[in-house]
């Protein structure tokens, strides 16, 4: 299936939006305007964008502690995202969630999640909901290599396989879980190998190649919509930055490894692809796209700063729905 140049440029735009949004979030975090913790997705944008561009708005996804990329890729509003990071009442969670808990149920984004492997059972329930709704909807779970060693992975895969639930389990294998390497923590070289133990397809894909990710995800989506059940997709990728943006954050990764992966940057790669073979993006267009994105991010920050903090007593709201 051809991916039109328009669609490729749209993917590029989303990837670059993730990057610029997070660069800014990191700056503002270090400056003290954003609190708690910020985990950047930078370097892994091709995964979220490749997968989400294979979905419809009605399809649902769930994310991790490293969630901004999935939000943007699924179509979240930068203003409300940034306002949430800034802890304002206009944020997605009215300031109650922060970076680790942005959700937008209207666009099928079922939330970032601060618990490693916390999303797997939840999204499997969304997959069950989609199956019961009978409208061909699909549910997608993003999670890390670290999460893949936790029990909920196993339970979810087995149940989804049993019931042929329309779910994509997308493991973002960025080779590290904090300071522990996948080589130490995962007993096999490829997490996708584990799919065979559930009797479902396991696919390995270059997670820095957005077009390949899109192709693999589209196939899995088609299978899911056709009632053929879940797929485990392992995207080999890498984070460019440390685990969090905390100035004191440690980093156990070898500098050479980091350097080697920086050269495989997914955005550079798509730009080269569009500029090269296809000649579908000239330097000026790319510059303009980037400027536009920078403006959008800037406007999001302005929106956040112009928004009020919640009233202190609002802490008592939303414990229960009524």
């Amino acid at each position, binding site marked *: 299936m051809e991916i039109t140049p328009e669609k490729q440029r749209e993917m590029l735009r989303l990837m670059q939006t993730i990057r610029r949004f997070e660069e800014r979030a990191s700056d503002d975090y270090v400056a003290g305007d954003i609190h708690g913790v910020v985990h950047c997705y930078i370097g892994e944008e091709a995964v979220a964008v490749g997968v989400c561009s294979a979905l419809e708005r009605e399809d649902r996804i769930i994310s991790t502690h490293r969630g901004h990329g999935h939000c943007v890729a699924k179509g979240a509003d930068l203003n409300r995202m940034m306002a949430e990071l800034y802890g304002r009442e206009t944020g997605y969670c009215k300031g109650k969630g922060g970076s680790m808990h942005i959700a937008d149920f209207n666009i099928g984004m079922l*939330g970032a999640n601060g618990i490693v492997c916390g999303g797997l*059972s939840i999204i499997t329930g969304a997959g069950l909901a989609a199956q019961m709704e009978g409208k061909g909807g699909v549910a997608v779970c993003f999670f890390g290599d670290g999460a893949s060693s936790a029990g909920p992975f196993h339970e979810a895969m087995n149940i989804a396989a049993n019931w042929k639930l329309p779910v994509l389990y997308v493991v973002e294998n960025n080779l590290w879980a904090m300071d522990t390497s996948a080589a130490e923590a995962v007993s096999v070289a490829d997490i996708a190998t584990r799919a065979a133990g559930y009797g479902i397809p396991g696919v390995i894909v270059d997670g820095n190649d957005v077009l390949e990710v899109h192709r693999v995800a589209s196939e899995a989506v088609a299978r899911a919509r056709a009632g053929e059940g879940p797929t485990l997709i392992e995207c080999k990728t890498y984070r460019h930055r440390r685990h969090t943006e905390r100035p004191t954050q440690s980093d156990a990764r070898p500098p050479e490894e980091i350097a080697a992966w920086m050269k495989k940057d997914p955005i550079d790669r798509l730009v080269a692809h569009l500029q090269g073979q296809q000649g579908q993006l000239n330097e000026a267009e790319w510059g303009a796209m980037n400027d536009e994105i920078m403006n959008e991010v800037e406007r999001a920050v302005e929106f956040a700063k112009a928004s009020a903090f919640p009233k202190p007593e609002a802490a008592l709201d939303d414990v229960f729905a009524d």
Partner: protein
Amino acid sequence: MRQITYAQAGLEAFTEEMRRDDTVFHLSTDGPKPLVDEFGTSRVRSTPIAEGALTGMAIGAAGCGFRPIIDWRMVTFCFVAMDQIVNQASKIHYMFGGQTKFPILYRASVGGGTRLAAQHSQSPYSMFMNLAGLKMILPSTPYDVKGLLKSAIRDDNPVISFESTRLQTFEGEVPDEEYTIPLGQADIKREGKDVTIVALAWLVHEALAAAETLAAEGIDVEVVDPRTLVPMDAETIRASVRKTGRLIVADEAGPTAGASAEIATLVTEDPATFACLKAAPKRVCALQVPIPYSPVLEDHVFPDRDKIAAGVRAVMAN
């Protein structure tokens, strides 16, 4: 009025609510036969033994517009699902700023007396009370369990129904007509003026039995059944104690940081009620030990009508 068992009353609640609302579905290991027969295996699913997955799946399905019922069966088995309960279900509505509802019923049997030893004899509701964001019911009669379960299924929040093992075969009046009981309303199971016993679940009946004995001794006991643990109807309890001046809390759980401690504190920390207290409040609870297997040991551990009566006499003597 017809008499049915506590278990039957619970099943009726489920059946009626599943008929009433297509979005209600049921997950558990070994789906209950009557529900499978009526609603089929798509709405009443037997699952692998993976209560953590079921508990989390309920959250996802609820966020997509369904009203899942997850029967953990014994409360013991929900501890494999505790991450989904503590870190997800109880917090998700709040931390997402209230943007979506998560109507879920989790169900668990609690209590002992069945010679099933420590792992299978637990009453850990207070563990969930310290969390914010979960409602909890603990019904003591067939009438209450049916009416509260129906409200719980209709509630737009995660609700846990703790149902006493000892009460499963207990019979009581349940009308044919539809009814519901709102969450958060205590029920005065017996009026009296000398001492208030706040009793939970099975101990409501033990307290009522103790009250009979004590009546013969000239002590007039009021028995209050909170029925709902969260939200707790503190005002009904406090009003009773302001009237009687004395408080016993009877619970099948151990006392330490238990529902009994919470109830006692709700009473004593209220200055108006404190001012009416004529004696120190007293907990009549299980001994603070894991539950042993051997009948002689197990019977020694649990409170019962005699221990409640003894507690009342002690409080009256103060």
